[in-house]
Structure formats: structure tokens, C-alpha cells
């Protein structure tokens, strides 16, 4: 039996998980349209590679990754691209973002795809395939998995698979583990190989005995060595990556430190599943499991195509008429979605239909009575009451001194607060104010540098002018002296070096001018308009070729040793 560690604090909110685990995962109906966001991951937004009106096949790439930290986006089914424009997206900002709208043709016609033998394929190729398949962390952080599956020169001892799913209401990982454990475990093996980790620990909260049993069975059946399925005590937020790492290994990963630096890497179970599907079957990330629960007639988990409009999904669970809003995620850390029209994204693990009866608005907050129940509940071992006082007083320097940025916004403090103070909102406010100030400070710094440089330049120009003037005056004086002398005085020891020096300077200036003239491109100076147009066209073609080359180089290049 493995010794488990504890993290500080934590709370036991009512789980509300049984509502959505009574029936197996259902395939959500094909929606009337798909609104696929191009920014469903951490990093740069994917760049659309299809045109409006183009027919696309299921699994065809419609957005390619831009830069290193980015991920691909694919057509979740076959159909026609009807729009590429700004739409509201499932994100807490409530701001619109670029989306590709796809009208399904109902044929669900796959693009040609095939898997690779993961044990025979070089690791760099596997990572490349993950990037190509748009696999990102499905626990909510949506960090590109290809980057996380790289140890970055650190020795990884332990790979942790996070199946804790500690947030109330959410059961998508639970159901996935119950039904598709074998693929998850296979995915874990691939990730372990990529990280060269010694052991794999799969942490699951002990309120999911079926999932624990299914995963253990999958490990036994697959005869996997060095994989351990561990039931951890149910305590929110045990599913926070840092908390789970602490529970399973005893290691505390401080804020701002990567767990890989301490020899641990952590993936969500659903990510491991997608890794396996992408590599062994060549299926890009087109759908995910979404729990639809709350104010619905039959709460359930659905396998949902990415981009499915929220309204069409919740209707299948029988969303009730008095639903006042849609929460994405759990009730502790979820976000209130801006609209029912947003498309499901890779980050959408759960939709809670909320009604005033189910989630009554909190009563007006009373003053803090310093009871420190928040501090007792805080898994980051902060002093939430101090942070609250400082944030309220807009003393942002102090909030940072009291480790504001170590706050993971799990909501445990606000959950236990007897004065019903919306503590997390104060922390978000303080953080955003600090970021804003940093941005302003940076802008001011840039402006200051620019101003200083300008002053410097003006000063330099002035000096140069003054020097030139002085030079001229000296020359004039010298000439006058020479003329006045009439008779040359070759033995003047002071005048001679001055004159030769001036001569040298003049020569140097003349040389430099000649060089500058020679360096100027002269062949385009006297072109006819026709010739100029031709040149421009050639340049444009060149740019396009460069772009295509960059694209294929970064992305489309086939794995070199596929056959291997």
C-alpha cells in the first residue's frame, strides 16, 4: 500500500455526481452547425487554412498551429465551411474570437487517416503527430500535449494521470474511465515512454469506485508494468495538479515552478485517451466527453463534436425552461458562459444548467470576522483574509507580498466563508489590477526609453553641429592665418599636424560617400511600371512559397520513419 500525503485545507462540497452517471456516455446528435473556435488551447490562435464555401472532410485540418505554443484545429465532421468570422466563444472573457462555422452534410465522411506503431516511432515524430492532431490537456488547462510530453532535459521520475475529478457535478472523466479504461492506460504508456518516466500513478478520488476498478482491470488485462491506480481521499481540490502531485508523491510544487523540474509530469486521463486515439488510430481531437447536468431532466455524459452549439447540446439532456445561465466547468471554478450559442471547445468538460433555485444568489456579504475558516480551507496555504483586506484596500503591493499569485482560485475560501464574502472575486480583481499596472509600467518604460533616446539624439546632433561649426571656424582661421602670413612658415610645429589631419578627414569622408553611393541598388531605380509590377508579383509568389514551406516544415511534414 502506497503512503499518501495530505495537502493543507480542502473542502467537501456536495458532489452531485450520481445524477449524471446513471446512464452510459451517449453520442450527441449531429448538430445543425458547428462553431469551431480557432483558439481552444493555451498559446497562439490557430490560423484558418480553409476558405468559406470549401467542403471539408471529418478530421481535415481547418486551422494550423501558429508558432511553437499552439495547436491544430480540425473539422469535427464532413460538411461545408459557411463562415470564418468573430463569434462568441466558450470562454470567461465573454469576448468574441475567430471561429469557423461548418454546416455538416450528414455523411460524416472521414479524411484518410491511419495510426502508427507507438513503440516503433521516434519520440520526436510522436510529439509532432500530437501537435498535428490538436491534442491538448482536456482537464481544463488545454495546454498543448506535445510540449508537455517533453521532459525538457529534466529527469522525470513519475508520470501522474489525473482522474481525481474533484469538482462537484462533473463526471466526464469518471465515465470515460469506466468505459474506455484500456485506451487511457495505453495512452499513459505512450506518455510514459515520451517522458521516460519510471512509474505511472493514476490518482482517482475514492468516490469513483467503478472508475478505480475499471482502470485497475485495464492495467491487469493489458499486463502493464509500473502503472498503479490509486484511490485518493475525496477532498476538493485534490484534482488540482499541484494538490494531486502532493497527495501521490509528497512533493510540493511551488507557484511559478514547473513540476518537471521536480521530476513529475501530470496529464488528465481524458488527455491520455486522446493521445492514444491520435497516435494509434490517427484520429485528431474532434470530440470530447461533456457532462450535461444541473437543471436538466436527465443529466448525462455525451460524446460531443467540438463546436456543437451549447443550446443544441443541452436540449438533448432536457434543459428546463427556468434555466438562467450555463456554467462551463464545475460550480467551484466554472465560468458563467456569455451565451447559449457558443460552441463546445476542448476545455468544455461540463455544462451545468443553472437556475436560481439550484444556485441561489448569495446573500449580501457581511464584514469579515477574521474567523480564518478560509485559511484553514486554503490548499495553497495562503492567508485569504489578509489578501482580502489588502485587495479591498487596493494595497496591491501587499497582496503580492502575501503571495496573491500563489492563489489557484479554487474557491475553497469563498465556499467556507460565513460572511459570504466573494473572496475569489477580490483576488481576480487584484490580479487584473496588478497586470494592468505592469502593462502600464512597461508602456511607460518604453516611452521613457524612447524619450531618453530622443534627448540623447538631440544632444548628439547639437554637439556634432557645434563641432562642425568649430571645425569651420578653425579652418577659416587657419586659412586667414595662412593668407596673412603670406610667406610659408614650414617649420611651424603646431600647424602642420593640424593640416594633415584635416586632409585625412576630408579624404575619409569622400571615401565613405563613394562607398555609400556604390552600395545603393541601382537596378530597380530606372524600371518601367510594367517591370515594377512583374517584380512585385514575383515577390508575392516568393512570400507564398516561404509561407507554405514554413507551414509544412512546422506541421505537415510526414513522420520520417513511419514504416519502421
Amino acid at each position, binding site marked *: 500500500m502506497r503512503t499518501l500525503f495530505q*495537502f*493543507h485545507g480542502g*473542502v467537501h462540497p*456536495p458532489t452531485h455526481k450520481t445524477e449524471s452517471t446513471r446512464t452510459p456516455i451517449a453520442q450527441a446528435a449531429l448538430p445543425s452547425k458547428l462553431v469551431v473556435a480557432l483558439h481552444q488551447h493555451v498559446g497562439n490562435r490557430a490560423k484558418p487554412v480553409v476558405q468559406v464555401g470549401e467542403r471539408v472532410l471529418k478530421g481535415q485540418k481547418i486551422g494550423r498551429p501558429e508558432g511553437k505554443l499552439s495547436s491544430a484545429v480540425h473539422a469535427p465532421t464532413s460538411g461545408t465551411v459557411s463562415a470564418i468570422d468573430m463569434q462568441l466563444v466558450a470562454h*470567461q472573457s465573454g469576448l468574441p474570437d475567430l471561429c469557423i462555422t461548418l454546416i455538416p452534410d450528414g455523411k460524416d465522411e472521414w479524411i484518410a487517416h491511419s495510426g502508427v506503431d507507438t513503440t516503433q516511432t521516434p519520440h520526436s515524430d510522436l510529439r509532432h503527430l500530437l501537435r498535428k492532431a490538436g491534442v491538448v490537456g482536456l482537464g481544463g488547462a488545454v495546454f498543448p500535449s506535445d510540449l508537455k510530453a517533453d521532459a525538457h532535459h529534466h529527469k522525470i521520475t513519475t508520470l501522474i494521470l489525473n482522474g481525481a475529478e474533484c469538482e*462537484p457535478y462533473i463526471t466526464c472523466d469518471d465515465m470515460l474511465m469506466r468505459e474506455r479504461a484500456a485506451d487511457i492506460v495505453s495512452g499513459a504508456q505512450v506518455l510514459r515512454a515520451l517522458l521516460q518516466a519510471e512509474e505511472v500513478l493514476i490518482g482517482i478520488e475514492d468516490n469513483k469506485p467503478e472508475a478505480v476498478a475499471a482502470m485497475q482491470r485495464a492495467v491487469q488485462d493489458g499486463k502493464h508494468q509500473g502503472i498503479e491506480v490509486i484511490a485518493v481521499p475525496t477532498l476538493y481540490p485534490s484534482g488540482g495538479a*499541484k494538490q494531486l502531485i*502532493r497527495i501521490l508523491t*509528497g*512533493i*510540493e*510544487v*511551488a*507557484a511559478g*515552478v514547473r513540476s518537471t523540474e*521536480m521530476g513529475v509530469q501530470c496529464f488528465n486521463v481524458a488527455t491520455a485517451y486522446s493521445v492514444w486515439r491520435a497516435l494509434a488510430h490517427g484520429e485528431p481531437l474532434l470530440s470530447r466527453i461533456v457532462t450535461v447536468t444541473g437543471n436538466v431532466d436527465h443529466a448525462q455524459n455525451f460524446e460531443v463534436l467540438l463546436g456543437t452549439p451549447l443550446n443544441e447540446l443541452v436540449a438533448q439532456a432536457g434543459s428546463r425552461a427556468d434555466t438562467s445561465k450555463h*456554467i462551463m466547468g464545475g*460550480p*467551484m*471554478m*466554472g465560468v*458563467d458562459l456569455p451565451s447559449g450559442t457558443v460552441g463546445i471547445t476542448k476545455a468544455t468538460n461540463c455544462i451545468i444548467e*443553472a437556475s436560481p433555485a439550484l*444556485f441561489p*444568489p*448569495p*446573500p*449580501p456579504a*457581511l*464584514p*469579515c*470576522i*477574521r*474567523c*480564518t*475558516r478560509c*485559511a484553514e480551507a486554503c*490548499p*495553497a*496555504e*495562503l*492567508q485569504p*483574509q*489578509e489578501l482580502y483586506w489588502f485587495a479591498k484596500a487596493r494595497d496591491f503591493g501587499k497582496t503580492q507580498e*502575501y*503571495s496573491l499569485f*500563489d492563489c489557484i*482560485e479554487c*474557491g475553497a475560501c*469563498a*465556499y*467556507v*466563508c*460565513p*460572511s*459570504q464574502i*466573494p473572496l*475569489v*472575486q477580490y483576488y*481576480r480583481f487584484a490580479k487584473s489590477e496588478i497586470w494592468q499596472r505592469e502593462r502600464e509600467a512597461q508602456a511607460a518604460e518604453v516611452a521613457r526609453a524612447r524619450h531618453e533616446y530622443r534627448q540623447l539624439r538631440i544632444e548628439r546632433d547639437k554637439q556634432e553641429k557645434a563641432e562642425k561649426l568649430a571645425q569651420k571656424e578653425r579652418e577659416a582661421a587657419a586659412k586667414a592665418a595662412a593668407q596673412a602670413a603670406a610667406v610659408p612658415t614650414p617649420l611651424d610645429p603646431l600647424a602642420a599636424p593640424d593640416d594633415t589631419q584635416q586632409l585625412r578627414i576630408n579624404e575619409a569622408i569622400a571615401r565613405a560617400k563613394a562607398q555609400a553611393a556604390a552600395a545603393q541598388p541601382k537596378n530597380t531605380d530606372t524600371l518601367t511600371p510594367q517591370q515594377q509590377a512583374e517584380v512585385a508579383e514575383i515577390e508575392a509568389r516568393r512570400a507564398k512559397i516561404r509561407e507554405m514551406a514554413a507551414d509544412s516544415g512546422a506541421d505537415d511534414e510526414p513522420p520520417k520513419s513511419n514504416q519502421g
Partner: protein
Amino acid sequence: MWSSPFITQPTSVSQIMLRVLLALIPGIALYVWYFGPAILVSITLASITALATEAAMLKLRQRPLKPFLSDNSALLTAWLLALSIPPLAPWWMVVVGTAFAIAVSKHLYGGLGNNPFNPAMIGYAVLIISFPVHMTHWLTPHALGGIELSFAEQMNYMFGGGLPQGLTLDAITMATALDTMKTQLHLGLSISDIRDMPIYGRLAGKGSEMVAIGFAIGGLYLLFTRIISWHLPVAYLAALFATAGVFHLLDPAHYVTPLFHWFSGAAMLGAFFILTDPVTSPTTAKGKLIFAVGAGVLTYLIRVFGGFPDGMAFATLLMNICVPLIDAWTQPKVFGKKGDGK
């Protein structure tokens, strides 16, 4: 916009305060059993005064009445103050003490959550400084079999009617066990002689020791239901015990046992109900220990070497002053930043 978390635990300030009030009931019940129902009258009087003052101050400060009047914090202040002063205190003393506690020491500092000093102890301090004589007339327990006033006669006295013919206040009241011990020691008696006096029981004062046990029982209830943390009562009682123990060991003839100190005066009430006021005590675990140890040592020193009959109130207030400093100096290390990474 409302943002996460969207759920909260159904605890409230009002419930917490109510639990503390409930925890006082065993002590109050024993109080009534040993000293008669007069205490209930002063508790009621203090409660009414507290609520009226709270309402008036909220009105003046243009704050909503309902959420604050129903938070039970004013009631708790009233009960603690009533339990700290002699039950036969004239009605106006109860009113003045309570009104001062609520109006000045609570609302003038910003109301609930903002007062640096424990309001009940401020009320007590005002009374003992202003009316020291009245504050020493404690009821004698029934067990002593002395002259006792009927409830009607007690009420008559409390509300200004004077005592029945031929009786003086001294005849029906006495100093506390703690106070008697101090004055008798000053008169040159030894502890064993003093302890033989009829007012003393097994642990401390007859009757009052049982009330202290009642408060301890209520306090343990608060401890086990996690309304209060263990740090304050445990550290306080330990510090009081240790300080008293050192003196007692050095000179047992002149310094009473630590147990005597535990069960006399306001030690138990203070340990579980007064120091534990979250508003006026430190927030960190280490800070709570420092605060309580300081209060324990100060209680002993004021009791034994000071001029007041008990040291609890002033020890609390003195330590209240130190709370911001203690908090600032005892901030714990956060997750992952404790040095060794484990």
C-alpha cells in the same frame, strides 16, 4: 457579474454566534443553580441594551439593520459582559457597560469585524474603573447557607429599590474567591488557613468553581464542533497553569495551586469564550499561541500582583493591542515554499 464559486457552505456569522451562545448555557444553568436566577435578569437586560444600542448605532451609521441585528454578535457581547460582572449589579451599571461596549468599542471602530478590542472586556474595564465597589459585591452561593434575598428582593435592589430593612450589601454579598485569597494573603494568613474558609470548595470558590466547569464543558463543545480552534484555550490554560505552577512550587505557602487559578475568576470563560473572539485575536496558528500565552501570563501577574480582582479582562485587552503585530510577524510559509520542497 457573479463568478465562481457558485456554491457556498450554508454557515453564517449568525449561526456561529448562536452556537457560541448555546455553548454558554451549561455555565449559565450552573450559575442559576448555585446563585439564583438574578443572573438571568442581568443577561436579559444586557441583551436588550445591546440590541437597542446596536440598532441606534447602525441607524446613525446608515447601515442596514436586519443583517447586523440578526448576526447575534451583539447578543454575545451582552451575555459575556453580564457573566463578567456581579449579578446583583444595579440595572444602570449593566446598561452603561453594555451600551459603552457596543457603541464605543464596536461601532466607533467600524462595527462588526473591525473592533480591535474585545467589546465585552472594554465594557468590563469601564465598569471596574468607574464603579470598583459595586464590582466586588458578588452573590454568595446557596451552599453557604447565609442570608439570602428572595428573587423579588433581588429585583427590587437591582432596579433601585434598595435592600430590605436591616440588611447591608456586605451581609448578602462577598468578594470572589480570587479576591478573598489576595486580601487574606495580604493580611498575613497562610493559604491553608484561607482555603479552610467556608467560601472555598474543592478546586476554588464554592459554586463559582462549578460555573467554571460549566463554561469548560461549553468550551469543549465549541472545540469539538470546530467553532473555535484549540490553539487559544489550550495555550492560555497551559500558560496560566505553568506560571501559577512555577510560583506555587517556589513558595506553596503564598502562591495557590495552578488548578485554583484555572477554576476561579474568569479563566474558563476567558479561555473558551473571550480570547476566542475571532475579531480581536490573531489569525495565524502561531500567532494564536503567542497571543494566548501572553494573556495567560498577564492574567496571572495581574491577579497576583495587580490591583484588580481578576486579570482576565486587562490581559485580554493588552494582548488585543498586540494582534496586528503578532499577525504580521507570524505569517506562515505558503505551499511549496517551505524550503525543502516536501
